[in-house]
């Protein structure tokens, strides 16, 4: 009987602890349900209607999806999104690693360099994009003016409207976004944690700098590479809007070459007032992000090295 009473008290205590734990995590759970889970289900439901921005709505089944798969604008944006995401992740990750390696060198004024390299990252993407839009203007752009000084003749390259230069400029600008700066800081902290003994052992074996980089540095920071790649993917899929909308417009100039899915979603919802259709597009974006994440985690099983 005494044993049963003891068990009962223990059970009540466990229950209290469990409730306390739930109470602690409930703010996050409430937030997750209200601001993540509910919008996802609401988006799925609205994607089956012809809802307009003014609220008029009728259930139309899968018609939005059928129309979407027939639309050239949709397929173009899928191609652009795929290309943009892959290249942006590769370019920004490589750049962040390079910057982190440079900052990891023991030299004077390292803190100042780090501050300067990180500074553009804290500028809001929209402001950054507008600034670069002005810099890369054809007639009155600062960059063309600089080139003209060096070339000794008038240079008027249409950086953001020419098929051959637009991607180069857009990917260059992504190097200054918050995402890249954040990656650099993460790599920097990861690099400082790589054991020195490993490099010393390499030195004893006469390994070249490149060998040390690919056989020691990269494996040791590979979990961070995975983390940054996943973050970069999500950022490229969702965050690219803030960069591209002010830079190349909602139609993704020139000729739809920069019209990523997030831009098309905005255009359909807020310029064409087709909220139901844009929700169907958002479902595709959601699936895209999930697939990218799954692929990266799948690759990580083979490529990422975990010490423990």
């Amino acid at each position, binding site marked *: 009987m005494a044993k049963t009473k003891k068990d009962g008290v223990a059970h009540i205590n466990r229950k209290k602890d469990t409730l306390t734990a739930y109470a602690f995590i409930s703010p996050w759970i409430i*937030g997750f349900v209200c601001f993540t889970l509910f919008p996802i289900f609401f988006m799925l439901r609205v994607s089956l209607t012809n809802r307009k921005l003014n*609220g008029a709505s009728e259930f139309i089944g899968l018609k939005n999806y059928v129309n979407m798969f027939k639309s050239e604008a949709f397929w173009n944006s899928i191609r652009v999104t795929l290309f943009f995401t892959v290249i942006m992740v590769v370019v920004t990750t490589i750049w962040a690693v390079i910057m982190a390696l440079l900052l990891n060198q023991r030299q004077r004024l390292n803190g100042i360099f780090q501050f300067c390299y990180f500074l553009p990252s804290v500028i809001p993407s929209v402001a950054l994009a507008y600034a670069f839009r002005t810099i890369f203007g054809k007639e009155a752009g600062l960059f063309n003016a600089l080139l003209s000084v060096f070339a000794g003749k008038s240079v008027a390259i*249409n950086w953001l409207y020419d098929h051959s230069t637009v991607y180069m400029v857009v990917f260059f600008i992504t190097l200054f976004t918050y995402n890249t700066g954040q990656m650099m800081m993460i790599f920097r902290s990861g690099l400082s944690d790589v054991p020195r003994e490993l490099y010393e052992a390499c030195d004893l074996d006469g390994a070249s700098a490149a060998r040390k980089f690919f056989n020691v540095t990269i494996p040791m920071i590979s979990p961070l590479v995975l983390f940054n790649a996943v973050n970069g993917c999500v950022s490229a899929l969702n965050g690219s809007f803030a960069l591209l909308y002010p830079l190349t417009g909602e139609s993704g100039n020139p000729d739809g070459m920069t019209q990523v899915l997030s831009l098309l979603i905005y255009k359909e919802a807020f310029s064409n007032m087709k909220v139901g259709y844009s929700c169907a597009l958002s479902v595709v974006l959601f699936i895209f992000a999930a697939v990218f994440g799954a692929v990266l985690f799948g690759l990580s099983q083979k490529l990422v090295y975990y010490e423990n």
Partner: protein
Amino acid sequence: MKAKKVLAMMMTMAMACGMLTGCGSSGDTGTALAPEQQESATAGDAGEASSEGGEGGKITICTWNDPNPNEELNMYLQCEKATGVDLEVTVIPESDYSSKLNQMVATKDDSIDVFIIWESDIANFVQAGGIVPLDDRLSGSSIDTGDFIDAVAELSDGLGGTYGLPWCAATEILFYNQDMFDAAGIDYPTNDWAYADFLAAAEKLTQKDGDTTSVYGCTLPNVQTWWAGVGGAGDQIYDPSTGQLVIGSGAEAFVGDCADMVSKGIMPEPSSDTADLFASGKAAMAWAGSWNIGTYGDSLGFNWDIATIPTNKEKYNTLHTGFYTINANSKNQEDAWKVIEYLMSEEGQTINSKASGNMSALKKIADQGAWKVEAATTIDNWEAMTDSLSAGIFGYTCLPAGVTGNAVSNFESAAMGQMTPAEAVKASSDYAAETIGY
């Protein structure tokens, strides 16, 4: 342990309170918009003093333009004084204006009493029951609806009643640099100028420095004036019966002409530049909205004048306006009507014309000429405005912005030689067909 529980409870309650606050309904002065996306000001903020309140209630009107800083030209402030209605002006940035208003209608928001809505939205708002008919109120009013310019009357007919009253009537015109015309020995453009005259003059006015152009004959059409060119070349552009974009051979011809001028350096390429090439003296002519007269005023460093957009196959001009409407969810529709009635009165329309340089859509008031911007001292050809307005119709402005924006993007690609004019027209038409009628 107890402290932990209390902490957990407090955090949960704080979260719940925050959510309830966020989801709470808007009060008399609240709006559904985030603070950074809108600015609110009483009509008197721009002037020295506001109304003392008076006998009327409080009304909120939304617009995309800041009230005029000059008290005499602030029509909202003058409206307060004349009607006794406390009038608050909510300014929503132009880029978000239409979408914000649509969201307000969707959520039955009542924080705005008077919407100034665009041509492309009025039919949707009527359909969604977001605005009220004004016919009954108009029958007992001094506003002479029979005096509206024809295009306005036609638009109301299509809605099955009068749901909005036009706050002004603006159009598109040709701006030209008189000094450059003098230097090139070319006669100034007239309101009868043919399109061929324009093409020839643009070529003559172009100045080159080696391979590059130092002064363009004309600026590239902007998002508005592409349509003046396309319509002038014979295309219908907007079919009121179907709501569809109707472009074809006219668009191909005009886009082809622009591509030709771009390739010869007579017109600049589309670019990310935000500079106004005409205002900066780098282009001799520009097709642009009449509202630029007020912006240029006496600030340009050269003599300039205006003329009607050159006539191609037909005289075509897009009419621009906005409509004063009453929010169906407004709790103060009587005072909202008082405000609209004042703004549409001779006094209200005259102040608006003086402040904006836009004409009144009421012909008798427009004829008085208050829209002739005093600061634009070099303009002789004021008839260009009335002449343009006589050819004005509601065209591309009735189409969804995404459709026209997409078409302009295609036209620009064609102007750069990245696609043919025929491909640009086809791509634009295909996109319009899949978008309109959704």
